[in-house]
């Protein structure tokens, strides 16, 4: 609603500000001021000041100076805890010799009884973990990532090893993308050999991913599950648009965990999970992937979808009470992550793509971590390290993590750095 400012309004304002006379003020012509008054007819201070300014007056103190308040009012900050009735399933990936596998360590995720990192409500039992991607064939990668993997792209085993030894991955994901009939149509049995190579090459738990082809994946993942028997891999993934039963059965038969994947749809996720329950898949063998969308390309949907699932689960919806896996590598789908210059002519300079890619992956990862992500599949080693670092800190990890230089928070005002511009 617009309100016309009348002279009497103006007079009121002057009264309010203790202004009794004007000096050297000249108002010429017609003044018609319109403004939006959201909270009542009182002129917002900002506008009042703008008006003063427009009229060429020095701003006047609103309240006469006075002795004022001598002491701070005492107060104690209090806040209620949020207690939830539900809890997230705890899922272990990987099996050591004592459990019939050959992994040197396992990874456990889930178990939360509060929102992520809300340790003031209930301590998060396990910090999020990072799986670094490798592929069963050389793939086109953004320039900023390619350099890290160029020497190992022909050999998935070496690639996996590099992810663990050089980049500190908690887990490795082997994506069997060459099995796609439109790529190389690698037979399932051959793909299974790649899985064996990876299991030989690294001793961390692994994720086995198909090509995403709904017709081929069931056979590929079944063969992979068979050769990895007893290793308790995460089989990625079962989806409503394919023969998920065959994949889930294979995962069960050979002792693996199944990734239940749906696309930004809570109800579909509940449905697929219920199908898995019906098949007899135990709860501790399920991880869900509600779909990751990149920063700038739907991350708001992914964030809210995950956050809503996590809240529902904590409120007691057992259909959704599972650890959440996020394909953070999807961040590289954002053009800002890899494109040299902006395709939009009016944009400010985009700067080097090499700096944009990692920051897109980092922000996508942390954002979904704050929504409820437990397992992040990532690509850029420095982005993976950064997300690992910050989630460890928020989780409250002990030891090594807190070795950064100590600072005083308020020193930022007088920080003399910043003189150097890159």
């Amino acid at each position, binding site marked *: 609603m617009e309100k016309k400012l009348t002279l009497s309004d103006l007079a009121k304002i002057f009264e309010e500000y203790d202004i009794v006379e004007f000096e050297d003020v000249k108002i010429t012509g017609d003044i018609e001021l319109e403004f939006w008054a959201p909270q009542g007819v009182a002129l917002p201070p900002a506008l009042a000041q703008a008006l003063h300014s427009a009229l060429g007056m020095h701003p006047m103190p609103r309240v006469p100076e006075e002795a004022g308040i001598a002491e701070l009012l005492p107060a104690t900050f209090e806040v209620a805890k949020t207690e939830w009735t539900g809890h997230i399933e705890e899922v272990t990936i990987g099996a050591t010799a004592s459990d019939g596998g050959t992994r040197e360590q396992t990874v456990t995720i889930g178990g939360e009884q509060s929102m992520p990192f809300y340790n003031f409500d209930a301590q998060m039992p396990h910090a999020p973990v990072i799986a670094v991607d490798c592929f069963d064939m050389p793939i086109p990668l953004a320039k900023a990532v390619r350099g890290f993997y160029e020497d190992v792209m022909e050999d998935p085993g070496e690639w996996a090893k590099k992810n663990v030894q050089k980049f500190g991955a908690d887990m490795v994901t082997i994506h069997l993308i060459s099995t796609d009939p439109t790529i190389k149509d690698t037979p399932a049995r051959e793909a299974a050999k790649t899985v064996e190579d990876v299991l030989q090459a690294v001793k961390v738990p692994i994720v086995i991913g198909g090509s995403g082809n709904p017709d081929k994946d069931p056979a590929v993942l079944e063969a992979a599950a068979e050769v990895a028997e007893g290793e308790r891999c995460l089989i990625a993934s079962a989806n409503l648009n394919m023969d998920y039963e065959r994949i889930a059965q294979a995962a069960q038969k050979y002792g693996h965990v199944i990734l239940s994947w749906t696309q930004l749809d809570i109800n579909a996720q509940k449905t697929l999970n219920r199908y898995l329950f019906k098949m007899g898949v135990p709860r501790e063998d399920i991880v869900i992937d509600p779909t990751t*969308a990149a920063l*700038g390309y739907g991350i708001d949907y992914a964030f809210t979808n995950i956050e809503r699932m996590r809240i529902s689960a904590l409120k007691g919806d057992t259909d959704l009470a599972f650890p959440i896996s996020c394909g953070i590598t999807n961040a590289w789908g954002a053009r800002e992550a890899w494109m040299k210059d902006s395709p939009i002519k009016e944009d400010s300079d985009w700067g080097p793509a090499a700096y944009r890619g990692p920051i897109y992956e980092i922000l996508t990862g942390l*954002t979904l971590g704050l929504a409820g992500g437990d397992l992040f599949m990532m690509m850029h080693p420095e982005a993976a390290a950064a997300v690992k670092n910050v989630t460890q800190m928020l989780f409250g990890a002990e030891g090594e993590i807190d070795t950064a230089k100590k600072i005083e928070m308020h020193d930022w005002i007088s920080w003399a750095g910043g003189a150097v511009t890159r």
Partner: protein
Amino acid sequence: MKLSSPMAIWKYLPGTNCGDCGEKTCLAFASLLKERKKHVKECTPLFTDEKYLDKGKQLVELLAPEIREVSIGVGARARKIGGEDVMHRHELTFFNRTALAYDVWDTMDADALRDRVTKITNWQKFYVGDFLTVDAIAIRSVSGDADTFAACVKAVAEETDLPLVLCSFDATVLEAGLKEVADKNPLLYAAEKTNWKEVLRLARSYNVPVTLFSPDLDMLNSLAATFSAAGVEDIVLDPGTYPTGKGLADTFSKLVQLRRAGIVDGNKSVTYPLMTVPLTAWLVYGDENAVDASYWEAILATMSIIKYADITISHSIEPHSLIAERTLVENVYTDPRRPVSVEPGLREIGTPTADSPLFLTTNFALTYYTVESDLSSNKIDSYLMVADTEGIGVEAAVAGGQLNADTIKETLDSCEAEKKLKYKTLVLPGLAARLSGETEDATGWNMLVGPRDSGRIPGWMDDNWPPKTVSE
């Protein structure tokens, strides 16, 4: 807001269904008030008719957002911060996006200062139909000298219309700066436990918003209660931003707890906008590790943007920082009630003719607007055919089966594309390349595989259009 349903709000309305507000009934208006899609002042009788005035007054108070809305700056680029009502965006929406402030300091030489202020002021990036910009400039007193600070503030104000944050713990320095821009409604930073009396005096005399700083939440609560009792309500709370380790976890927990105390518990003395300072990352990493510092700063900004900071102060104005941080703000503060998808069908970009190309995309709003703006910004006259993929983007829709040869055929048929075009050729998104063969079989159309990103369409057109093999 304090009223939990449209019915509860309706009780305060005249109930005459007069229609002044543009709605047919008072109840319909009440629903929109609940969703904060209409403003109570649009009910004219409530504020003009004697007999409703009391109710009107009460309703204004009851509908006020849980977190106070504070304005900083003046003019077209003034910003409101705070004004939030919910803890999670899906419960309604977040309203006033986090204001991103970037720093300058009073020991910069004149040219460098002007250059930096101009860069911050003019930075822009196109995104989903509009240009993103950043929100404020924070001026740090590094010299500690009042005159130096005042001169810097003056110089900055001459170069920008962005809201300013004046930063010093020395009230004398603050006042010197404030005098230069007192008519510009700058945000003061900050009052704390030792200087609060002087800063309170400044906030009152100049009637400007003020930040209260204390990592001790009892003290912060106490400062806020005191300022409020003294009549200062335009308050921003800074619980301190510790950049690493346990201090970081502590900062995170304070942000969540302050917002929860304000919104859920209704602790009046902390119902104010929150501030964080991702810039503290630079104190750890230093200038010599600028890239790492900017990444860590972006991490602190991410945490802040998602978990309740209403204004942040950062240092890196490198494009990678600005693009990523500002995009995240846009995403988090997008109204989740807006539709995910656009109408399927055939769109004309520019003034297409029978010789123009036909591009395929999905009805996921973000995908659609991206492709649409890439085509129109590069002035490519063309047809854009939008397939119904249930609001899912290209790559995911190919994987999930919402985009396949059959759905493409249906879309082609239903929009009668062949009547408009000379070449029976469809340009598939590069991410849907694998559908090429089967779609050719299903439709009898010639498929051209476009680039994987629609930003590359201009270059792609040079090499691929008009098509070399055509079925006319």
